[in-house]
């Protein structure tokens, strides 16, 4: 799998495969979709299980559920303000979906669906469509003044407005590319160094000794990837709430 022949095959881990053989093939259900369903189930289980007991002194599951809830709640209220509370379910779902997807992808044999630009771009488009609808619903047509800063000379309007519109439209692109690139880069690096372990390790006793070096790198990389997985979910959530802040307050 890792090093067939002499070539390092770092990208085959991102290939989609039908889930459950012919059943998945006939309904176009890939392992990526299966992992999304699994993440959905895990989050639901965490929240239902975590809030079932409602103990005053929380157990482990309840503490996890509560602290993730409060973390995102603080983030949303801190960024958007108190009007932002109504968008909390949206940001929380996004955050948990991406966080669990990233973390699940680090397990052996698991698939990282956030490493596909199709998935991250769909999420980013969802964010930008929601943000635009929110802005239009709150401010009506006044929303379009967002594209022309107050106090700028009217003469520059044909120059400023296209640039502002492109800047606005580049948000989903940068949002999705950031998550996607981070996940792909991390997993490719892990795979490359894992391939080194196999390739150097198959070169006899001395190679066995030499293989400990890339193995040590991989241990460090796994820790780093855990950080990146949480950080990117956080960045996605905080940028979503920054965009929502702009939509709610406009200027």
């Amino acid at each position, binding site marked *: 799998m890792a090093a067939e022949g002499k070539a390092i095959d770092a990208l085959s881990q991102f290939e989609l495969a039908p889930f459950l053989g012919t059943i998945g093939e006939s309904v176009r259900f890939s392992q990526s979709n299966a992992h999304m369903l699994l993440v959905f189930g895990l989050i639901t289980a965490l929240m239902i299980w975590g809030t079932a007991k409602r103990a*005053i002194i929380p157990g482990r599951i309840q503490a996890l559920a509560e602290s993730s809830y409060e973390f995102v709640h*603080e*983030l949303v*209220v*801190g*960024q958007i*303000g*108190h009007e932002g*509370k109504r968008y909390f379910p949206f940001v929380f779902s996004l955050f948990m979906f991406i966080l669990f997807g990233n973390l699940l992808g680090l397990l052996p044999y698991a698939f990282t669906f956030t490493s596909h630009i199709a998935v991250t771009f769909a999420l980013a488009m969802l964010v930008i469509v929601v943000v635009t609808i929110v802005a239009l619903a709150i401010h009506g047509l006044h929303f379009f003044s967002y594209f022309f800063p107050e106090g700028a000379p009217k003469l520059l309007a044909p120059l400023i407005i*296209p*640039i*502002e519109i*492109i*800047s606005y*439209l*580049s948000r989903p*692109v*940068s949002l999705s*590319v*950031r998550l996607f*690139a981070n996940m792909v880069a991390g997993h490719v690096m892990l795979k490359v160094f894992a391939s080194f372990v196999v390739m150097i390790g198959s070169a006899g006793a001395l190679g066995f000794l030499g293989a400990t070096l890339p193995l040590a790198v991989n241990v460090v990389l796994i820790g780093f990837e855990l950080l990146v997985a949480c*950080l990117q979910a*956080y*960045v996605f959530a*905080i*940028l979503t709430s*920054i965009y929502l*802040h*702009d939509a709610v*307050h406009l*200027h």
Partner: protein
Amino acid sequence: MNERDGFEQRLREARTRQGLDKPSEGGKQGLPPGPMGIGFRVGVELVSALVVGIGIGLLLDRWLGTKPWLFLLFFVAGSAAGILNVYRLFNPRSGRKI
């Protein structure tokens, strides 16, 4: 649990939480700093604005049949939008912290 202790304080906290009192400023979190993160963000912002600009230019060209001109125009506009994005990264619009 002692219910009476610090009742006023807990009431104040609850009122702030529900948005009845003025929220205290300064509780805002920002994006995690760090040279790697900032560098990566700047790169992504620049490139994504450029890509969107070029995409709009090419689409308009195909639609209106003005082969290279709108592409060139939106290439420049896309670069400008990229610079604007980077500027916004460090000087946000409405006084909020990034």
